[in-house]
């Protein structure tokens, strides 16, 4: 297929996944703000949401205060913030429009409808009562996108690049989320096992749809290291790093024609660490270091995919 087409498909999927993850972070942060004493200040509550998105500096440059309304607007609707939900969905739709031929008609119509519906939220003030509804809508639109593309697209390279985009983006988001939250809640700074901890960690779990799974697997109190294990090593947890690489590695094997051995090598190495790694060792070397290293490797993989497939050289 055309390299440019593959590029648009890959980024379309990444942007939709990014919007979904942003909505998840916003939703749980907002819910946390309703828990009494969850945080000493609005800043302490909302800054992590910006850290996960990776744009604290940009926010501070354009805003004076960490108020809920400010952060929500910045992360959800700000047209000047390239990683806001608005920008991500707009980019997803622009990418889809550029390659509507390569999508099944249903997939294109789904993304187009998404963009048409977005208008109603833009007009309304979502920062107070409407936020949960908005976040639910983003999530369900993203689910629909995956369902429609999975259910209607020919299993060719176009489909593979869409899936690749989804899981590379998801792995990045899960790793960042865990890193930010884990960093904040290192034992020692606060008493462990308090009510606030419980809410914080259940919020993290909910933000990756893992709360029920946690209960089912461990049926025990929520412990930070188990949360980390669930989101890093468990291959049956759909948003875990391991599960993402269970998808990514075979896709890179299946892509036809000129193979990129470097991208397969990076993915294989990352997959092996997740597949054979043990949580004790990861903790010994430091979870933060592990996650930081993971995000960098995942980034390198993304760049290698970009280099060898999407910006295909002439010869």
């Amino acid at each position, binding site marked *: *297929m055309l390299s440019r087409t593959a590029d648009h498909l890959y980024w379309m999927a990444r942007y939709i996944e990014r919007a979904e993850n942003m909505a998840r972070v916003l939703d749980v942060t907002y819910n946390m703000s309703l828990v009494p004493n969850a945080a000493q200040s609005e800043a302490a509550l909302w800054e992590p949401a910006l850290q996960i998105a990776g744009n604290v500096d940009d926010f501070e440059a354009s805003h004076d205060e960490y108020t809920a309304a400010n952060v929500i607007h910045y992360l959800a609707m700000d047209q000047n913030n390239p990683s806001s939900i608005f920008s991500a969905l*707009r980019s997803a739709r*622009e990418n889809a429009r550029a390659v509507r031929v390569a999508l099944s008609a249903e997939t*294109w119509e789904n993304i187009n409808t998404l963009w*048409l519906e977005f208008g109603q939220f833009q007009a309304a003030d979502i920062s107070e009562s409407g936020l949960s509804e908005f976040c639910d809508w983003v999530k369900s639109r993203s689910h629909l996108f995956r369902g429609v593309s999975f259910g209607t697209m020919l299993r060719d390279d176009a489909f593979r690049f869409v899936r690749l985009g989804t899981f590379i983006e998801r792995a990045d988001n899960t790793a960042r989320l865990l890193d930010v939250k884990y960093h904040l809640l290192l034992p020692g700074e606060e008493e462990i096992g308090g009510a606030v901890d419980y809410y914080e960690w259940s919020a993290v779990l909910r933000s990756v749809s893992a709360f029920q799974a946690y209960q089912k697997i461990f049926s025990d109190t929520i412990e930070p290291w188990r949360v980390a294990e669930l989101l890093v090593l468990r291959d049956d947890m759909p948003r875990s790093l391991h599960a993402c690489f269970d998808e990514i590695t075979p896709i890179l094997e299946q892509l036809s024609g*000129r193979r990129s051995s470097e991208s397969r090598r990076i993915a294989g190495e990352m997959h092996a660490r997740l597949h054979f790694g043990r949580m004790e060792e990861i903790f010994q070397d430091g979870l933060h270091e592990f996650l930081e290293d993971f995000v960098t490797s995942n980034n390198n993989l993304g760049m290698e995919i970009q280099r060898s497939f999407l910006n*295909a050289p002439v010869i």
Partner: protein
Amino acid sequence: MDMASRIPFDEMQPQDDAVREIYRVYAAWLKSFPLQQLERKRQEAEVLFRRVGITFNVYGETSGNERLIPFDVIPRLLGSAEWQMLSSGAIQRVKALNLFLDDIYHKQEIIKAGIVPAGILANAQYRPEMYGVDVPGGVYAHIAGVDLVRTGESQFYVLEDNLRTPSGVSYMLENRKMMMRLFPELFRRYSVAPMEHYPQVLMNNLRVVAPHGVQDPVVVLLTPGAYNSAYFEHAFLAQQMGVELVEGQDLFVRNNAVYMRTTEGPKRVDVIYRRLDDDYLDPLVFKPDSMLGVPGLLSVYRNGGVTLANAVGTGVADDKATYIHVPDMIRFYLGEEPILSNVPTYELSKPDDLKYVLEHLAELVVKEVQGSGGYGMLVGPAATKKEIEEFRLRILSAPDNYIAQPTLALSTCPTLVEQGIAPRHVDLRPFVLSGKTVTLVPGALCRVALKEGSLVVNSSQGGGTKDTWVLENA
């Protein structure tokens, strides 16, 4: 020629006359169908078009704000005898125009015979780069959009021949799909000739004109990109034909061949259905600052390494200065009498014509020779005194750039507008396809001027579209 003062011919029910036979069933149905429900159908169509993204971009507007072309739910009907006449007339015209293009880029016999003046070789649309170049099958205008208007029961005129990159066929096809969805019961009452096979006919033709010796040609559709006004159509046709939709940046030239960049490496391209104007095709030959084209494309093309559809240089044949000569071309090349008439045309390069036109500006339509899309034209009867005087100055500064025609009382067709159902002026654009043979599917894009009294049907100027039904056995 006093065509303007006449009351326009109505396609359904001419003034003080009975409903025309072909409309009998439809008119009765329309009368019994509640207006509110018709309006609901119109809204339903709008929602569907919007969701599918059947839109066009207007130049100068920001992205993401694509507009819908207004769709009218009342179809235009044509009887089979009418259609027979129109289609053979359009085919005859396109045959002659292809022969003319082949001639003017080779032996130039029509100039030697004194039928077309040699001045045509100085026309900006004449491409000297094409002189002596043989194109597969001698086909230049693979796709032609012949604009037809009607002024009476049997008076049809050709307004212009669009031979460069005519657009609108996707609306012809989508409008039919929409009508079948909205009014299935009508398709049971009428036997409407199907035309949904257009993309297959086009694809077949594009494969036929592949460079000599290519067994299984790779066909692509070249678009200027997602911000082009007709991008939807480009995507639609590529999808319907199952070919790659490429932009200039996806193609490159190497060793006298055109390749596209794919995830599996370079892939050879044999036929390019290009929806990009000549000027932007190859920055090495035409506009050097064009980012839309492919450097070196023209050289491969001239050497026969790739086929372009339409050919480079067709613009000289649909130029309004050339238009005047088409009836003579038909006689010269085919030895036949033209089936369809031209609109009588004044050439402002001729002093007598210029004098007459300047005296009658308020009655005439004046067009720029190279204008298109309804821009740069004066519709005398609809213009203010001030507009006429401004246009007079423009004409006087460069009379050669203009032609003038009487204001035709274009036929009207019942149309759903805000006030209810009212007559609005329409035209008709069938798409003529040339490959091994010259054919067209039984259908056409019908454009309608939605503003009361307006004669400008272009979508860029607020025109809408209708489905056109060619009735079998009627």
